[in-house]
C-alpha cells in the first residue's frame, strides 16, 4: 500500500487573527451534537476558550469574569465547517476579503472555512499561500485554511509544486471554477499525491458538453432559450475521474454535486472501492431550475440548479452518506457584475450567512431530514481534508454556535456581513437564526439584533437580560 493521504497526515494549517479567549456560561441550552451523542438540556461553561464543563441545567455557578447567557429556549450546536468558499483574496477584495468573508462565516455559525485558490493571482505557489496565511493571521475572524491550485495558473497544463504547497499548509488541491479537462494531468496529480498528500477536490464538468451553457438543460432552458448545461456534463466526468482515482489509489473529493446521475456515479465509485467523497450545497438541496424562470441572476451558478428529481437524489445522497458534507460554495460577486441580464451575469451565489437557516427552513421543518443529520453534515466538511470535527466535549477548544430555532428573519433585511449581496435566498423569510458563534475559543459573532430584540420582547427579555457581561 502506498502512503495514503488525508487523515493520517498532520492536519492542514489554519490561521486567524489573535482574539481574546472566551469565558462564557450558556445556561440551560439544548445541546445537540450527534457525533458526541448529546441531545439534551445542559449548562456549558467555556473558560479561556476551552469547554470546561457540561453539566445539568442551572447547576454551574459562574465566576465573576464569566459572561452568562440565559440560553433557555436556544440551541447549541458544534459550529459548522465549510470546506468550500471563495474569499476572492487576493485580487477581488472589492467582492470579499478575509475579514468580511470570515465575518460572514461566523454569522452563519461556521467556525472554520477552506478557501478556494481561483484568485488573481491564483494560489499556485508557496509565496502566494504564505502571504494568505499572513493576512489570515491579521484579518480572519474564524480559522481559515486554503486549498492550492492543482495546475499552474489553473490552466490545466502542468502540476503545481504540490509537495512544497502541502509543507506550507495547503489543505488540498483544486482547480475549482474550472474542471481538470485533461485526464492525463489528473492522473499525474493523483500519482504525485503519494508524495505530497493533499486531497484533490474536483470541479466536475466536461466543457465539451457544458459549452456556453448558463443553466440546467431541461424544459425550462428550452422555454427560456438559454443554453443548457446537461447533467451528464458533470456525471460523466465523475465517472472518468473516479475510475482514474481507483486505478491510482488516489484520494478525490467531488465538489458541489448537482445531479441525480452524479450521486449515482459517486455511489458506484465508492462501491467499487474508490477513495471518493462528495459535497453538496444548500442551494442545490433547496432550489431547482424553476427559480431561473424569473431570469434573476441571483439564481445563476455553476453547477446550475437542476430539476426536482435531482434535488430529491441529492437529499437521498445526503441521508445515505454518499454525500458526506454540506459546503456553501460561497461565491461573492459585485453588484455591477450581477446586475445585468441573466445571460451576461457571472456564475455564483453567496451562502455562508444563510446555509443553516435555509436548510433548517426547507428541509428540517418540513420533515425531509432530521436536525441531527443536518448538524452532522454541516460539521463534517473538514474531515475530507483530515481536519478535526468540532465537538461539544470538555477539554476541547470551544467551537460552537448558539441558535434560536424559533426565530424568523428576512434575508438581507439588516444587510450582510459579506461584502457582496448575491444571495439566492435574498428577501426570503427563514427560520432559525444564529445568535452567536464561538470559533477556536473566541467569540467570532454576535447577532446585532440580539440585544435590541431583548428590549422589544418583554417575555424574552426577562430571561435573556440575565445574561449580562460582568467583566470588562
Amino acid at each position: 500500500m502506498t502512503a495514503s493521504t488525508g487523515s493520517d497526515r498532520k492536519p492542514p494549517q489554519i490561521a486567524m487573527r489573535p482574539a481574546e479567549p472566551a469565558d462564557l456560561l450558556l445556561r440551560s441550552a439544548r445541546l445537540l451534537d450527534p457525533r458526541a451523542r448529546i441531545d439534551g438540556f445542559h449548562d456549558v461553561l467555556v473558560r479561556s476558550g476551552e469547554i470546561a464543563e457540561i453539566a445539568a441545567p442551572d447547576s454551574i455557578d459562574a465566576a465573576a469574569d464569566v459572561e452568562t447567557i440565559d440560553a433557555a429556549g436556544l440551541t447549541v450546536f458544534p459550529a459548522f465547517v465549510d470546506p468550500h468558499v471563495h474569499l476572492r483574496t487576493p485580487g477581488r477584495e472589492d467582492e470579499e476579503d478575509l475579514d468580511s468573508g470570515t465575518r460572514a462565516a461566523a454569522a452563519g455559525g461556521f467556525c472554520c472555512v477552506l478557501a478556494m485558490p481561483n484568485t488573481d493571482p491564483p494560489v499556485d505557489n508557496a509565496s502566494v499561500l504564505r502571504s494568505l496565511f499572513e493576512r489570515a493571521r491579521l484579518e480572519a475572524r474564524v480559522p481559515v485554511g486554503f486549498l492550492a491550485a492543482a495546475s499552474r495558473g489553473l490552466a490545466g497544463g502542468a502540476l503545481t509544486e504540490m509537495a512544497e504547497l502541502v509543507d506550507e499548509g495547503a489543505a488540498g488541491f483544486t482547480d475549482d471554477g474550472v474542471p481538470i479537462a485533461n485526464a492525463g494531468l489528473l492522473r499525474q496529480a493523483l500519482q504525485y499525491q503519494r508524495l505530497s498528500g493533499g486531497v484533490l477536490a474536483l470541479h466536475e464538468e466536461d466543457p465539451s458538453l457544458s459549452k456556453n451553457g448558463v443553466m440546467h438543460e431541461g424544459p425550462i432552458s428550452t422555454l427560456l432559450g438559454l443554453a443548457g448545461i446537461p447533467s451528464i456534463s458533470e456525471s460523466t466526468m465523475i465517472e472518468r475521474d473516479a475510475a482514474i482515482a481507483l486505478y491510482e489509489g488516489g484520494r478525490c473529493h467531488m465538489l458541489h454535486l448537482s445531479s441525480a446521475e452524479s450521486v449515482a456515479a459517486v455511489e458506484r465509485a465508492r462501491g467499487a472501492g474508490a477513495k471518493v467523497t462528495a459535497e453538496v450545497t444548500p442551494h442545490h438541496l433547496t432550489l431547482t431550475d424553476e427559480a431561473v424562470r424569473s431570469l434573476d441572476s441571483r439564481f445563476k451558478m455553476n453547477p446550475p440548479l437542476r430539476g426536482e428529481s435531482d434535488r430529491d437524489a441529492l437529499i437521498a445522497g445526503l441521508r445515505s452518506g454518499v454525500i458526506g458534507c454540506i459546503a456553501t460554495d460561497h461565491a461573492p460577486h459585485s453588484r455591477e457584475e450581477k446586475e445585468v441580464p441573466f445571460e451576461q451575469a457571472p456564475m455564483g451565489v453567496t451562502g455562508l450567512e444563510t446555509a443553516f437557516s435555509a436548510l433548517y427552513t426547507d428541509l428540517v421543518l418540513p420533515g425531509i431530514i432530521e436536525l441531527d443529520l443536518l448538524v452532522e453534515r454541516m460539521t463534517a466538511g473538514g474531515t475530507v481534508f483530515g481536519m478535526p470535527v468540532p465537538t461539544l466535549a470538555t477539554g476541547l477548544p470551544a467551537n460552537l454556535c448558539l441558535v434560536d430555532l424559533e426565530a424568523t428573519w428576512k434575508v438581507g433585511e439588516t444587510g450582510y456581513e459579506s461584502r457582496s449581496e448575491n444571495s439566492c435566498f435574498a428577501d426570503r423569510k427563514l427560520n432559525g437564526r444564529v445568535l452567536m458563534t464561538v470559533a477556536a475559543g473566541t467569540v467570532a459573532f454576535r447577532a446585532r439584533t440580539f440585544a435590541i430584540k431583548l428590549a422589544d420582547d418583554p417575555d424574552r427579555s426577562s430571561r435573556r437580560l440575565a445574561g449580562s457581561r460582568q467583566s470588562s
Partner: protein
Amino acid sequence: MRHLLSIADLTRGDIERITAVAESFAEVAERDIKKVPTLRGRTIVNLFYESSTRTSSSFELAAKRLSADVVNIKSDGSSVDKGESLKDTIATLSAYDPAAIVIRAPWAGAASFVARYSSASVVNAGDGKHEHPSQALLDVFTLKRRLRADSLDGVNIWIVGDVLHSRVARSNVLAFTRMGADVTVCGPPTLIPQDAASLGCRIAYDLDSIREADVIYALRMQNERMDNTLVPSLREYVSRYQIDGRRLEPRQLLMHPGPVNRGVELAAEVIDSPQSLIVDQVASGLVVRMAILYELLSAGTGGNVRIAPPTPTEKQPA
C-alpha cells in the same frame, strides 16, 4: 397588460385582444391620413442592441402613427458602445420619463431586466434566443387574416429549421398552440432543443410528413451556425430541409420571419409564390406593433397612463 415580455406570459384571450385591435388599426392603415392621436405627448424609446431592419422600423413607424415621440438608440455609436451597463443606460433613458421602452438585445432576459429597473412599459423586441413576442403576434394575425378565421383551431403548422437558436420558433410555438394550432417543429436533431416537446409541439427530424401541414413556417438558417459542427454541411442541410417547389404543395401556406437566405432555407420559386405570406407578415408587423403599444399604454390601467395630459398648444413667440 403592463409589459410584453414573452408569449409564455400571455393567455389566448390576450392574443385575441391584441390581434383584434390590430384589425382596427389595419383599417386606419387604409385611410389617406394614417396617423391617430392616441399616444400624443408620450415618449417611446427604441433601444436596439442588435441590428434589425423590419422590427426596429416597424416599431418606430407604429409609435409615430400613434403620434408618440420616438427616440431610437442603437448600440453602435451610443454610450452603450462606450461600455455603459444596461442598468445605467436604462437609468439615463428613464430621465426622459418614457411611457414605453422597446428593447432588442442579444441576451435572454434583457427585457425582463429592463422591466425590473424601469417604470416604463417594456416591449421585448427579441432577447437572445429567448422570445420575440411581437413577431409571434404578427404571425398569428397574418395567418388569421389569410385563413379568414377567428382562431387557429386545428390548423397544422410546421416550423422548420434551426429551432435551437431561434427566439421566433419559441414564441411562435407558444402563440400558435395557444391559439389552437397543432404545431410540429422540424430540423436536424442537433438544432432541436432538448425537451422541445415540453413546449407543447411535436418533433420531426425530416420532411417526410410535411404534406400534412397547412402552413410551413421556415426559419432563418444562420450561416454562422455552420462553423460549430451542429450540422455537417450547408449542402446537406439544404438537401434535407430546404422548402422548394417540390415540397410546397399548392394548398399549403408559407411563412418566414425574414430576412430570407435565398437558396438556403427557401428556394427562390417559393418565396415569390402566391402561397407565400412573407410580404403580408411585414405589413402586419406595423399594425400589430401599433396594437401592442396601444394595449400597453392606452387600454385598461396598464402603463404610465396619464388621463389628461395638460399639453398646452404650442404658441409661436409673437
